[in-house]
């Protein structure tokens, strides 16, 4: 165990080392877009943040960002569990703005969602957030106004625990993954409204057809094409916004920027990994270094060692790596659709780099993702039938295959806002995520996550079921087929009640679903040790459940954290209202 002072000490020693060697990387030499930006701490428990339009450089190209204290990402907000913090946020934009503290338990008026918890921060004005810090771990913060988050308005947040962490490390680095576009995100959204595959340059072509024919035979290939065509869906639909327009960032640096974190061989290095992207899941790995996951969404989990993990938008994971060798390691975060990557280096000295792993071939959706009824076929039967899906690669035998069927869909197809439904709903918590079914090394799965201490063990009194729905062709996103503007009231939670939230993904894409203000305990089979999540990625055609104690009165946002999906209506307000029942 080490104290916070030691952590900070080693961090500043690292900075001193950098300065001494006079080998500051480009980002640290001043000029626009320096990261980390100016220290927000202005008093014992006081912080200042300034939102402004600032030019930044991304891989040698100039862009205009919405920055926090001048940087993308914004500065590290470092709190200590138990303190009450005051954060003055000044909006120097010519439009309203906001800051939301992602995953933080606080009074709802401080949650920072305009139109839900407060009116927003008008241009030129300052809003003062003040709340007691009741948790610890790695989190982040971002704008909840319009598409400002896409323009760079996000940053990391670290809360040091009141009691020492239950794991030891010698040094820590924050890794903020994100996706940057030089274009105006509203214009990009308008393009998607008119042609939803506008940015997808990894679609199946005639060449793929002939390759599949030679691999699987004509009949199987034709049948596969007909199956997808009948549904008017594309197996290549992995990401709506792709590397065609995105530059993927690691701590604000593009792949060429090669952000570098230092270590001394043999040190235990804690990496606080935050997916602050708006639309991009990442496959995260450091080739040659196993990662021991110690926290998920800021909460302690039973340590589990993996070689790779798929990080959903808005999730955070803390891992410990122990590089023994005196060499550089590449930190590689491949976008899930493999149209690009963010990259940095973990090195014993500045200026080093390691070979950059090649992008793997793009994954494909499967009939499992479509929630198709496979007619009770066994896996072997599927293979023989030629319905073996691209990307599943079940013939390798390395992967257990899709999770079990747990439910079937009701006759309600959710109207024109939804295309298709998950006729067959599966428990997919044991699956590693799209494209990682057969990578030949250990990949983190949700069933690996086991809380270190038991949380609330009350049985749920009530169930709420919500379906994630969408119409890719029209680029409409919703819950239960209804956009936010179409519903008549918030979702009621009764104060003090314990409830089970069931999420069913009727779409063929992953959705990172985020509940503000309250933890969601993922029912992943670990009994009294269910892991707490603030953001849960729901796989295509998956049915999962979460336990929630409605212990936070007020209005809370609940939404898909893919920014454009949220903005298109996959958004709800949960209202926790007074209740006469038992409290715990």
């Amino acid at each position: 165990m080490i104290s916070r002072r030691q952590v900070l000490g080693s961090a500043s020693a690292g900075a001193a080392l950098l300065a001494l060697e006079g080998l500051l990387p480009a980002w640290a030499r001043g000029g626009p877009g320096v990261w980390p930006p100016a220290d927000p701490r202005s008093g014992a428990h006081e912080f200042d943040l300034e939102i402004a339009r600032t030019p930044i450089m991304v891989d040698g190209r100039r862009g205009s960002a919405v920055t926090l204290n001048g940087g993308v990402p914004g500065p590290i907000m470092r709190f200590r569990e138990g303190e009450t913090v005051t954060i003055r946020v000044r909006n120097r934009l010519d439009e309203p703005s906001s800051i939301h503290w992602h995953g933080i338990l606080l009074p709802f008026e401080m949650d920072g969602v305009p139109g839900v918890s407060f009116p927003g921060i008008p241009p030129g004005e300052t809003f003062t957030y003040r709340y007691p810090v009741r948790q610890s771990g790695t989190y982040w913060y971002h704008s909840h106004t319009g598409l400002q988050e896409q323009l760079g308005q996000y940053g990391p947040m670290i809360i040091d625990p009141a009691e020492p962490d239950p794991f030891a490390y010698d040094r820590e680095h924050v890794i903020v993954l994100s996706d940057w576009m030089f274009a105006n995100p509203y214009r990009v959204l308008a393009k998607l409204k008119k042609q939803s595959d506008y940015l997808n340059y990894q679609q199946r072509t005639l060449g793929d057809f002939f390759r599949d024919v030679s691999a699987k035979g004509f009949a199987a290939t034709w049948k596969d094409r007909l199956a997808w065509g009948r549904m008017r869906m594309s197996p290549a639909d992995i990401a709506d916004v792709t590397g065609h327009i995105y530059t993927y960032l690691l701590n604000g640096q593009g792949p060429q920027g090669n952000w570098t974190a230092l270590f001394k061989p043999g040190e235990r290095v804690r990496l606080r990994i935050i997916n602050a992207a708006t639309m991009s899941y990442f496959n995260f790995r450091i080739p040659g270094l196993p990662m021991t996951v110690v926290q998920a969404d800021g909460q302690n989990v039973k340590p589990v060692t993996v070689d790779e993990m798929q990080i959903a938008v808005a999730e955070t994971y803390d891992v410990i790596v122990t590089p023994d060798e005196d060499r550089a390691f590449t930190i590689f975060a491949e976008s899930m659709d493999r149209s690009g990557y963010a990259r940095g280096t973990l090195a014993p000295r500045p200026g080093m780099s390691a070979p950059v792993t090649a992008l793997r071939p793009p994954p494909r959706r499967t009939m499992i993702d479509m929630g198709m009824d496979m007619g009770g076929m066994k896996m072997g039967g599927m293979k023989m039938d030629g319905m073996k899906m691209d990307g599943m690669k079940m013939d390798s035998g390395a992967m257990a295959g899709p999770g079990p069927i747990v439910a079937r869909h009701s006759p309600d197809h959710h109207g024109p806002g939804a295309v298709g439904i998950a006729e067959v709903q599966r428990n997919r918590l044991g699956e590693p995520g799209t494209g990682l079914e057969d990578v030949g090394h250990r990949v983190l799965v949700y069933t690996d996550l086991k809380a270190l201490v038991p949380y609330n063990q009350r049985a749920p009194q009530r169930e709420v079921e919500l379906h994630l729905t969408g119409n890719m062709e029209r680029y409409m996103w919703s819950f239960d087929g209804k956009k936010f503007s179409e519903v008549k009231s918030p979702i009621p939670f009764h104060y003090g009640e314990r409830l089970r939230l069931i999420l069913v993904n009727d779409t063929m894409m992953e959705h990172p679903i985020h509940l503000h203000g309250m933890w969601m305990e993922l029912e992943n089979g670990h009994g009294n040790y269910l892991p707490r999540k603030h953001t849960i990625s729901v796989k295509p055609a998956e049915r999962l459940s979460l336990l929630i104690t409605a212990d936070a009165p007020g209005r809370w946002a609940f939404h898909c954290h893919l920014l454009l999906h949220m903005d298109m209506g996959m958004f709800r307000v949960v209202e926790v209202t007074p209740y006469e029942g038992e409290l715990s």
Partner: protein
Amino acid sequence: MNARIIFLAVVAIFLGSGAAIAQEYPPSGAPAAWSPPIDDSRTYTFVQVDRSELRFGKGDPRYLLDSQGWIGTDANKLWVKAEAEAEGQFGAGRGLEQAEVQGLYSRMVTSFFDFQAGIRQDVGPGPSPTYAVIGLQGLAPYWFEVDSALFLSDDGDLTARVEVEYDLLFTQRLIGQPRLEVNLAAQDVPKLGIGAGLSTLELGFRLRYEFRREVAPYIGVSWEQALGDTADFRRAAGERASVTSFLVGIRLWF
């Protein structure tokens, strides 16, 4: 006078603030005076020149413009469709041969299809009827883009048209597009040269290259066959019943 203005202003402020206090935005339960957290009902505008092409066959080249666009939300749109055909050596010949403009209200009725209703006005040197239009436009199973409509003219003549397009990806940017257009009529309309039944059938194939999604020049071939009485009307007018053309054009949208 001043007192009255002040009185009205006070009333307005009172009513306004009263409304703000009393009202909530139903989806959020938050005060209605606050801007909603998201805006999922924006209005978008789409303009497409689907076919802008020179058609080379026997005789003078012809120019075809087929464009459409809409303004609206997910559920409700106003569509405008315009098609014009001109004959002659790059506009130097007889000029506009025929043209039509449609203005349609379009309503989302299923996940993939909109119901449309409105009017069509033909313009050109010949007769220029006005039609009432109802139609269905959208994406059919197996990725067929379908635009179908029934037209009832001010003379009471009923005709119909179905257009079907399909995109065939040779590469991510080189895309082949087979296209079928069928015109049908419930009766002979001699003054327009339309015969009852299946009046014309047009098959085309265009090969475009998407420099950007929005900008795609193409080459292609088109074969149009008039059938039944329509063929007879055309032959009587000294036209051919079957026309094969080579096409050079550009597809644009924004």
